[in-house]
Each structure stands twice: as C-alpha cells, then as structure tokens.
C-alpha cells in the first residue's frame, strides 16, 4: 500500500470524476482496497444512470399551453392599456409644446388623425384575437418582427425626449404605428382566411 491510510470517499469520488490529486492517483495504483472502492463508486454511478425513467401520468401540455396563452395575452393587453395612456399623454404634451410650432392647428390635426388610425387598427387586431391563435412558422416569424418593431416604436412614443424637439415627428411615429398594426391585421386576416376559421 502506498501511504499510511486509505483514500477518503471524497478523494476517491474526485478521482472517479477525473479530478483526483496526485497522492490519490498514486495510492489507488498500489492499494487494492481503494482500487476496489473506486470501481464500486463507478459502478454505483453507472447503476444510477441506468435507473428507469418516468413518464408523466397525465398529459399536461394543454394546461401549460393555455396558461402560457393567458399570460401572453395579459402582456399584450397591458401594452395596449399603456398605449392608450401614452396617447393621452401625447395629446397633453402636444398642447404644452404647440405654442412653439409655426402651424399648431395643422400639426394637431395630423397627430389626431394618426392616433385615430392607430386606434382603429388596434381595435381591428384585437377583434382577430391574435394571442388566441396558433401560427405556422413563417407567419410567426413575420408577426414577431412586426411586434418587435411595434414595441421599439412604443418605447419612443412613451419617451417625450424622442419627439419633443420635433413634434411633427410624433405624428410620423403614430402613422408608422398604424402601419405596423395594419400589417399585423393583414397577417392575421390572411391566416384566418387560409385556415378557413
């Protein structure tokens, strides 16, 4: 036997896992007892890995899918409510800054019109229940891209620093928003027609 003691379980486990120290390696090479224990530890691990797997007694996918859908929908509606608030705030802020504009009435009309378009598109989209429908891979990719752009635009609309210096930019962003929502409506409408729902 090399040394005056046997390796501890912790030392032998480290050796089994390829991390053992020099002493343990040398010791196991010359100690039959520790070599046998190392082999036993390897066998226990192999037997643990060979234990049977389990199968869920019930299919939980429907529950998971439904709960995920509800969570996604609540996220969507929250964003919608946030935008209504943002629109109100935008109107108030326009009143605050319009005195500095050369043609405040025209700017206000443009802004109101863009916001109305956006709201109409949002209602149309809501009517299609976009979160309640499964999409194929291609459509899902398009929707994800549009929603990503929508979220980025919403972040800018919610930050007056983005448009306070150029209020006409605010109307442009609301028009852009209406366009993105219109594209989303198109995607969902096409999909609804395609699957015949």
């Amino acid at each position, binding site marked *: 036997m090399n040394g005056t003691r046997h390796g501890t379980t912790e030392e032998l486990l480290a050796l089994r896992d390829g991390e053992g120290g020099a002493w343990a390696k040398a010791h196991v090479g010359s100690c039959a007892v520790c070599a046998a224990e190392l082999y036993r530890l390897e066998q226990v691990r192999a037997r643990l890995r060979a234990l049977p797997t389990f199968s*869920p007694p019930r299919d*939980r996918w429907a529950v998971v899918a439904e709960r995920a859908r509800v969570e996604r929908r609540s996220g969507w509606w929250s964003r919608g409510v946030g935008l209504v608030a943002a629109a109100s705030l935008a109107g108030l802020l326009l009143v605050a800054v319009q005195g500095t504009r050369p043609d405040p009435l025209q700017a206000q009309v443009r802004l109101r019109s863009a916001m109305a378009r956006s709201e109409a598109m949002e209602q149309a989209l809501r009517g299609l229940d976009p979160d309640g429908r499964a999409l194929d*891979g291609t459509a*899902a990719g398009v929707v994800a891209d549009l929603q990503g752009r929508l979220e980025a635009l919403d972040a800018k609309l919610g930050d007056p620093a983005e448009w306070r210096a150029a209020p006409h930019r605010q109307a442009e962003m609301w028009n852009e928003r209406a366009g993105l929502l219109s594209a989303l409506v198109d995607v969902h409408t096409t999909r609804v027609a395609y699957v015949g729902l």
Partner: protein
Amino acid sequence: MADTIPLAEAHSLVARARAGDSGALEHLYRAYEGSVYTLARRLTRTPEDAEDVLQETFLEICRSLSRWRGEGSLWGWVRQIAASKALMRYRREKLRATEVLDDDLAERAGDDVPLRLDLEAALRRLPERTRTVVWLHDVEGMTHEEIAEQMGMTTSFSKSQLARAHQKLRGWLGEEGADR
C-alpha cells in the same frame, strides 16, 4: 442525460417558439417532458410534486425563451430551470426540519430497515437535499460548482454531501467493505 434535440434544431425551434409558434413550443414540451418529469421525480417527494414541477418548468420556459443564448445545450438550460423549480418547492415547504428527522431515521438503519436495499429504495431513503446532489452530479453530470450555485451552497458542501451519500448507499446496498 443526453440532449434529444441537436443544437441547430434547438436554435430554430426556440426562434419559432419565441415568435409565438405554438407548434414549436409543443415540440419542445414533447421532447423534454419525460426528462423533466424524471428529474422532478428524483428531486421531489411525490409524483404530484413532480407533475407540478413539470408544469412550472414549462411555463417558465415559455416566459424565458428569450434568455436562452444558444451557447450551451438546450437540455442544460431546461434542466437548470427544472432543478430550480424543484429546489424552490423544497425550500417553500420548509423541509429542513423534516429533513433532520429523515437524517436521523436514515442513520438508524437497523431495526426498521431491511439488511439490504435495492438502489431505487436506497436512493429514495436519502435526505432530499443529499439525493438532489447525487442525482444532479452523478446522473445529470452537473459540476459541484453548478450544483453549489443552484442550491445556494458552497462547492465543498456539495462534495461532502456526495461523499456522505455514497457512504450511506454503500451500507444500505449491503456493499460495506470489511476492511474500510
């Protein structure tokens, strides 16, 4: 446990699932439900707990798909979430006090314990925290550093728990060496 979804396919599936493709999400669920449930059964006390962990794990996956960076295996990420959910349940139920009792019972492996247990029964007899370390390390292949991080403990604690577990298993499996 090997990943059942190749990395390239995992990237594509996750991208589709992130975009709301429910078919991709279901594919992920079907690919991993057995592995997650088995892990949960090994880490929790009852089949009902394991079912809850399975459900909570996949809901968390739905919420967190954007956090998978695609650098490691998808199963590694799913497994981390599943282990975390099982450990949260363990902490929530405040099993520490009960576990002391388990430890005491396990130490008194005399009158009320058969002379030799099979591996399945011996594993079940380990205290929950110790069994978790054994399973995550020896079966799932997690490092002591990963286990320590997951369980909020030190690596030396993880190593000592593993050694202690193997000493107990040796006794319960009737493999006690006469000269050790």
